[in-house]
């Protein structure tokens, strides 16, 4: 709807921040895609092993069968098995977290909402800890499998709780916070009482988010769910716009409020669950990025969703590059870096928008 504004001749360009960006969505998206591709190409070359963009091309071409392999097996392995999946997973996760954040903030009309507001991340942590520390699942269940089941279970708990408590958006947020606190306490309790030092360190690293264990299977799983979520949310873009003045206002604009809420919460919770079970809880991307993207695109979700996805992808590619190279050979959990960058950015965005409220 806010695309009603597109290309309107009478619009005075100077008044709205980002007014020009608004009217040229295809250009912005194309530019964003190019920046993302360039970021991935450059990020793959950064690291202890000396690899150039040409080497990346050589590997890509030989892997898809368009050229004879020219690189050594080791260098080829570093690119194809380590750096490329890791960089791609960073892009997919960044995009997914940003999209989930946009949808949650609009749906719950709460600028503090993020992908983890429905307790998904804490549920994932509890699930992972139950598997790793207590051996739940008898060896059949992997850590990420346990995380996924925990995430889905905690989402179901939040939805049941908020429905019982009246079903309004503030009840959803409060139920999410309550479940999050409960599960975090449970996770800490299990780790403190049962885990040895080695396991604790592993669990902690995962709790803060890490792309260190990225493989092609994670990349494909996350990418498939991300694309599905983008398609579903894109179809609901105008309904999300209509939530601006609340649920009653959305209902009088012809939005099926209940159905929209259930569908969008379910797909974003599913995406968050898949992301968290692959890389842990990477905070702040989903909270801060939607605010930043809104400054760029304006409030219409038809623009906000794709632009947030691209911006999130580019951001996390670079943040992960910093996280793995900053203190070489030691790796910093990516969640620590997102928080270090995210908090000042959040403060800056709030400071810039202070006059509006």
């Amino acid at each position, binding site marked *: *709807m*806010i*695309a*009603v*504004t*597109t290309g*309107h001749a*009478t*619009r*005075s360009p100077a*008044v*709205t921040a980002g*007014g020009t960006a608004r009217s040229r969505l295809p250009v912005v998206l194309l530019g964003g895609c190019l920046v993302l591709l360039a970021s991935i190409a450059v990020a793959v070359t950064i690291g202890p092993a000396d690899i150039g963009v040409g080497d990346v091309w050589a590997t890509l071409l030989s892997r898809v069968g368009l050229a004879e392999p020219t690189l050594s097996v080791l260098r080829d392995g570093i690119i194809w098995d380590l750096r490329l999946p890791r960089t791609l997973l960073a892009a997919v996760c960044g995009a997914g977290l940003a999209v989930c954040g946009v949808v949650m903030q*609009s749906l719950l*009309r709460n*600028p503090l909402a993020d992908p983890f507001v429905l307790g998904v991340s804490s549920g994932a942590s509890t699930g992972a800890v139950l598997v790793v520390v207590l051996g739940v699942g008898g060896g059949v269940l992997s850590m990420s499998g346990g995380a996924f089941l925990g995430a889905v279970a905690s989402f179901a708990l939040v939805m049941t709780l908020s429905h019982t408590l009246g079903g309004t958006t503030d009840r959803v947020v409060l139920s999410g916070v309550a479940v999050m606190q409960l599960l975090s306490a449970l996770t800490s309790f299990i780790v403190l009482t049962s885990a040895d030092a080695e396991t604790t360190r592993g669990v902690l690293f995962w709790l803060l988010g890490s792309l260190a264990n990225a493989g092609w299977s994670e990349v494909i799983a996350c990418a498939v769910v991300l694309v599905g979520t983008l398609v579903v949310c*894109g*179809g*609901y*873009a*105008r*309904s999300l*716009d*209509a939530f*601006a*003045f*609340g649920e*009653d*206002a959305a*209902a*009088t*604009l*012809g*939005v*099926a409020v209940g159905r929209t809420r259930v569908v969008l919460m379910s797909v974003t919770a599913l995406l968050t669950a898949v992301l968290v079970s692959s890389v842990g809880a990477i905070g702040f991307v989903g909270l801060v990025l939607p605010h930043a993207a*809104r400054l760029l695109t*304006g*409030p*219409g979700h*038809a623009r906000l969703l794709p632009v947030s996805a691209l911006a999130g992808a580019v951001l996390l590619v670079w943040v992960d590059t910093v996280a793995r190279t900053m203190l070489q050979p030691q790796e910093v959990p990516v969640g620590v870096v997102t928080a270090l960058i995210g908090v000042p950015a959040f403060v800056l965005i709030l400071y810039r*928008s202070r006059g*509006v*409220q």
Partner: protein
Amino acid sequence: MTSRHDTTSQHATTSQHPAALRRETATRHGTAESAVDVGLAAERVSRSLGGGLVLDGVSVAPADGSTVGVLGPNGSGKSTLLRVLAGVLKPSAGLVTVDGRELADVPRKTLARRVAVVEQHSDTQIPLTVRDVVGLGRVPHRRAWLSASADDEAAVQEALEQTGMTARSAQRWQTLSGGERQRVQIARALAQRPRELLLDEPTNHLDVQHQFELLDLLASLPVTSVIALHDLNLAAMYCDEIVLLDHGAVVAAGDPADVLTEELILQVYNVKAEVTTSPEGHPHVRFLRT
């Protein structure tokens, strides 16, 4: 118009007596043009909230293009009546119909292209421009994935012009005054291209000048408006018809001169008043200290 007022007035006052209602409905169907089948109408609608009955057998059938004022003390059911008419609340008993079709059977989007609502208070944290807000009125007309059509653009432009907000279209919603926000919400409602416009106390928090401007605007629009109001004199000046509610039931309905009487004001508001006729022919209410 006059005959419709009489019908509604009679209808409302007899709504407590089913037999009388049936008789009256029968005669109306027999004689008059079937006014019930045109536009938005509530037929003996009740609604309970939290154990109590908030609406008790209320019937309203605004004439096409008229301005209907809903009056009554706080808690008399004005907002609930509007919410039931808008389809946001389902009636516990009775029927709400659009062109003779029950509201529950009308798809949500179809209804939103037909009936628009302006809430008493609306606010958002999202940095929207005036044009963005008015553009929301096109949500029920648009399909997913497609960008705005020429018709959408035209409807937004027209709504901005009708409400005198064209020059402000790029201004942020958050920088507008209360009166301007109400105008923008009305523009948004008009962009829906409705036949019926429901407004819940739109003059609340507005100074006198803006109250007059707003009601002038509403009275001049070519739509049927149902407006919940607090100010009896504003209602007398601008409404073609008044529905007076008390404890969820219609006490009186019809021409302002028939509804705004000293007896009814004392009965419903528990305030003594003197009602005179203004030079323009409207009843004028002057409250008296006791």
